[in-house]
């Protein structure tokens, strides 16, 4: 559980277009790392390289190395499916499977991978995951109902439950609260603080207060210039980034002066 991720000099390409250049960082286990920065600077793109979702885009590729503990994620012979088994992901827009019930949505990671499991065992996994996602009390009486009938905030927590049901080591969250109201956002932030006891969490957010509230470490991404690749400007303890950042660009961004 909860592994360390080490990124070394990572360049991310869409075909010939260099989107993000020269990212190096260490993501500590059992902590929340927040990635902030203006739109289009490559935060989400970078996040998607961590579980090899980036290469699903045709012709997309990366150069550089990412290690999870001692395994090279982009090493020869590494099956991306196995990488994703250990690194789960929650997306910006809640995307429960519309054909499945709430129960099946949570169990999807196991069922779709044909894990043979006894009914009681499966029930346990589902309940544990839903409890961990703070959703159990709200849906325990209607597990057989379609997941897409829940509210937006509930759907997002359902997606989190689905992601942690397969017990990944790392949880990536791509703006998980951007479509949610403050109450659901609060619920998910509380959840992140609980989950970091067991998981390594990386979250991309546009909400700087959110980054300040939930994260231990914050990384600031920015575009080098118009038409130029994005880069990691600096990464440091969240308190330091929000009080005395070492780079001018970071200070400008968090204080609302940029461009």
């Amino acid at each position, binding site marked *: 559980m909860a592994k360390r991720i080490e990124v070394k000099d990572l360049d991310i390409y869409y075909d010939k277009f260099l989107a993000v250049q020269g990212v190096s960082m260490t993501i500590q286990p059992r902590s929340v790392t927040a990635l902030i920065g203006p739109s289009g600077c490559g935060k989400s793109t970078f996040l998607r390289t961590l579980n090899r979702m980036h290469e699903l885009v045709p012709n997309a590729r990366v150069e550089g190395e990412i290690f999870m503990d001692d395994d090279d994620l982009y090493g020869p012979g590494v099956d991306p499916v196995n990488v994703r088994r250990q690194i789960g992901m929650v997306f910006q827009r809640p995307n429960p*499977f519309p*054909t499945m019930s709430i129960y099946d949505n949570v169990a999807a990671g196991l069922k779709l991978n044909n894990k043979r499991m006894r009914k009681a065992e499966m029930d346990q996994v589902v309940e544990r995951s839903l409890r961990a996602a703070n959703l159990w009390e709200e849906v325990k009486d209607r597990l057989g109902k*379609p997941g897409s009938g829940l509210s937006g905030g509930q759907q997002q927590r359902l997606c989190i439950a689905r992601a942690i049901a397969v017990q990944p080591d790392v949880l990536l969250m791509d703006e998980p609260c951007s479509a949610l109201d403050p109450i659901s956002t609060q619920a998910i932030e509380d959840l992140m603080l609980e989950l970091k006891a067991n998981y390594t969490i990386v979250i991309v957010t546009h909400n700087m207060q959110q980054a300040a509230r939930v994260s231990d470490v914050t990384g600031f991404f920015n575009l080098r210039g118009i038409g130029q690749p994005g880069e990691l400007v600096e990464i440091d303890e969240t308190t330091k980034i929000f009080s005395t950042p070492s780079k001018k660009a970071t200070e400008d961004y968090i204080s609302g002066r940029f461009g």
Partner: protein
Amino acid sequence: MPPTTSHSPQPDLYEPISGPSLTAGQLPRGAAPLTLTVVVLAALGLWLSGWNPAACAVLGALTYTAVIYVWSRVVEGSRKATDRLVTAVVTCAFLLALLPLISVMVTVLSKGLVRFDAEFFTNSMRGVTGEGGGVYHAIIGTLIITGFAALISVPVGMLTAIYLVEYGRGKLARAITFFVDVMTGIPSIVAGLFAFALFALFFGPGVRMGIMGSIALSVLMIPVVVRSTEEMLKLVPNELREAAYALAVPKWRTILKVVLPTALAGIATGVTLAIARVMGETAPLLIAVGITSGDNFNPFDGRMATLSVFSYYQYVNPGFPPQPALDRAWAAALVLIIIVMLLNLVARLISRLFAPKTRG
């Protein structure tokens, strides 16, 4: 006002500049139905006084359009007049498009219901020369041949569509898309000739089998299945695929367990409609399957009867007296229409049953 305005006085902004009141210029309620009724009555009068009915209808439509446009233009202004004009034109076009359908339904029903008796649905044409006889053999033949056509086309078409949407990139995918488009335009008689020529290579000229008809029909059906399945698969949001990938589900299993179930309703509807579409084909079956008067339910052995070909032969070779054969032809056509209609209903039912539900 302060006395500082030496230049030309500014327009007072607190006074409304101009413009009609909000309720100005409306035709009285029921103006359109009233005009329509008057025009329809006038047209009916003309018809009863000996005019050609088509001329009456056209004249009526034109008069209504003109009257409502001019009236509205005078009272309501050009914007609403245009609205009424376009509404009238669109409605006319709709009625015009509906006309052949109604005409066909009325003709087939009135002429086909004559032979809707028990004998018609339980007997074949073996030994029948004059009255009597039935289409039992042709109904079963149509179902068998279309069934085999579906059995061939659905897997081929669906797998092609899955390849195109989920895997296909570059030249090969583009070529396949292009040839599927070309296939859509193949005349049905060519499909029949293809099946005929193909089997003639192996079994010698003059061979006829039910399965040949199925193959000819599947040539027509595959592009329809590919197209409809492709469209449905494209409608599945990419986010669902990504959600599955992020759960470490392999691609093939994602397609099988997430993408296909999500699109199932649309695919099933498309397939059913494709079946309904080829069921009424006549030309390829005429060439590849022929006709027989007795029961032959083995698609791999000799000629079979099908409803469309049966109807055709009864009509062109009625024998003497011709009336019983003509009745059989219309009744067979009606049976075909009913089967196709049932299939369409089934398609609607399927799309309702399989559609992803949002509320339990």
